[in-house]
């Protein structure tokens, strides 16, 4: 097995896992907040937020990567400011995670939003009559009941982050051990005549990792469903 993939490939696998994991995790909190706002509030500019959230889906990844580069690069508007406080995304695995998170964001938000919209507000009302403040209601009723959507969203986000290529390579390029994720490696192999076999090996690795994550998520989903009593 160790011989089946070279050390570089193993590094890519590890990096992809790391990037996907943190992308997923990093997107969760803002994802939940945005989804909640979109599902439950009416505010000025709601549609603009909605469009912004979906943008990474609509634009070709290269464009998103380019926009990320312009904003979060060391010379970029936000990137420059962040650099001052020591946060650098450019050409780091953190940047790959950022790119993956941005690309996965619409998927996460949509899933969570769907779940929030499916929650019966009457249950939240019941919690309020029992003395729960808005925040308390959110954490004790809304969040547990939106777990199916959260989980689905996280699975999508993780999968998307595992497969993200265009935005990542444009934003943080392809530095072995740093930003060379599985998709970059696969892409590189596909650029060379006869590289298909090597690429397919990595494709298989991707599939195995994804299958593992998916099965884990299904197990969790079952548990949640049993908890919420629909199973």
């Amino acid at each position, binding site marked *: 097995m160790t011989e089946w993939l070279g050390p570089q490939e193993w590094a890519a696998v590890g990096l992809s896992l790391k990037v996907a994991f943190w992308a997923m995790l990093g997107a969760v909190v803002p994802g939940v907040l945005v989804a909640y706002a979109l599902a439950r509030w009416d505010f000025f500019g709601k549609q603009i937020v909605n469009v912004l959230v979906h943008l990474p889906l609509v634009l070709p990844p290269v464009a998103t990567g380019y926009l990320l580069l312009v904003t979060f690069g060391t010379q970029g508007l936000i990137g420059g400011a962040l650099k001052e406080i020591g946060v650098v995304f450019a050409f780091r695995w953190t940047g790959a995670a950022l790119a993956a998170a941005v690309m996965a964001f619409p998927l996460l938000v949509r899933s969570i939003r769907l779940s929030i919209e499916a929650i019966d507000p009457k249950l939240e009302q019941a*919690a309020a*009559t029992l003395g729960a403040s808005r925040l308390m209601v959110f954490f004790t009723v809304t969040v547990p*009941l939106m777990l199916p959507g959260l989980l689905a969203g996280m699975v999508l986000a993780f999968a998307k982050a595992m497969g993200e290529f265009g935005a990542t390579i444009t934003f943080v390029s392809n530095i072995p051990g740093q930003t060379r994720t599985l998709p970059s490696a696969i892409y590189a192999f596909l650029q060379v005549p006869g590289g298909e076999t090597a690429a397919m090996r990595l494709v298989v690795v991707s599939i195995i990792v994804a299958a593992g994550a998916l099965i884990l998520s299904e197990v969790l989903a079952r548990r949640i469903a049993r908890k919420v009593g629909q199973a």
Partner: protein
Amino acid sequence: MSVEVHIRQGFRGFDLDVRFEAPVGLTVLFGSSGSGKTSVINAVAGLSKPKKSRVVVNDAVLSDSAAGVWVPTHQRSLGYVFQEGRLFPHMSVRKNLMYGNGLAKARPEVASFDQVVDILGIAALLERRPSELSGGEKQRVAIGRALLARPKLILADEPLAALDEPRKAEILPYFERLRDEFSLPILYVTHSIAEVARLATTVVALKEGKVDRVGTAAEVLSDPSFTPMGPRAVGAVLEAVVAQHHEDGLTELSANGVALMLPEVGHPTGHKVRVRVAAHDVILSREAPKGLSALNIVEGKVHSVRSGGGPGAIVSVDTKAGRILARITRRSAAALELSEGVRCYAVMKSVSVAPQDIGTR
């Protein structure tokens, strides 16, 4: 006044305009299906925000649209038993019960966990999920959850509707205790006359979104012209004290000196109680009846005879124990020549005073 409510709200094709005040105690909201009971309670709970509302409970202003006051629901210190359960599906019965309790540590308990579990008979269900409960079990857990939230105001929307008679009989006294011992203001929706008679301090009758009538339970129940509860609801409510517990299981009450025999009443001697005597349970006689199995025979004078459209008539008889209502046929009224001022005897079987109809006061 313990509760003051004024609500004006409009739905599609339904206008709610309700205004009433109720003294300390339990206020029953009464009215046919769709008359606006739940809407009123929701507004009191702050779950709906009516166009116009003023809700004052025990001098605390919960909302006053004129003054721009609006206490959010979670700060109203409620215990709301919803008409449809609304248990949290993701929590065990135990967690459901303790939800509000944990949030209101500062307020005094009105019931301990063990007490509630015991009264409601839900000890065996504590680790289950709501989806694994029967209809009545859900309802009981919902009651428990509201009671354990250390409420300062209880809202109960048909809390006992899904329960069997013996279970109701076990839970009812508990609402009495909340009303009397804890002096909690309670807004209570029910269609059951037994519950009205037993629990209500005040009855607010709603009709198509408006207040049809407000009065004490005794007033409303003993008004033969008030029919929305059905003819069986008419009856007198007598004030009495527990005089003596007899050895054969009967309890003797004294209503202004008149002895009334009832099956065992679970209150100590000297305790004040309310006794409802349904009008249809009273037989009238011109002569003192003899050799009857009925133990309670009270002499009195006919105050009025009212006959409605049907074959029945309601005869009010003033007795020393208070005014008693009898629902008899017009034919009997004629045969007995009952009319204003005539002396007669009211015969009440001891057991016809149903235990549910004895309330403490």
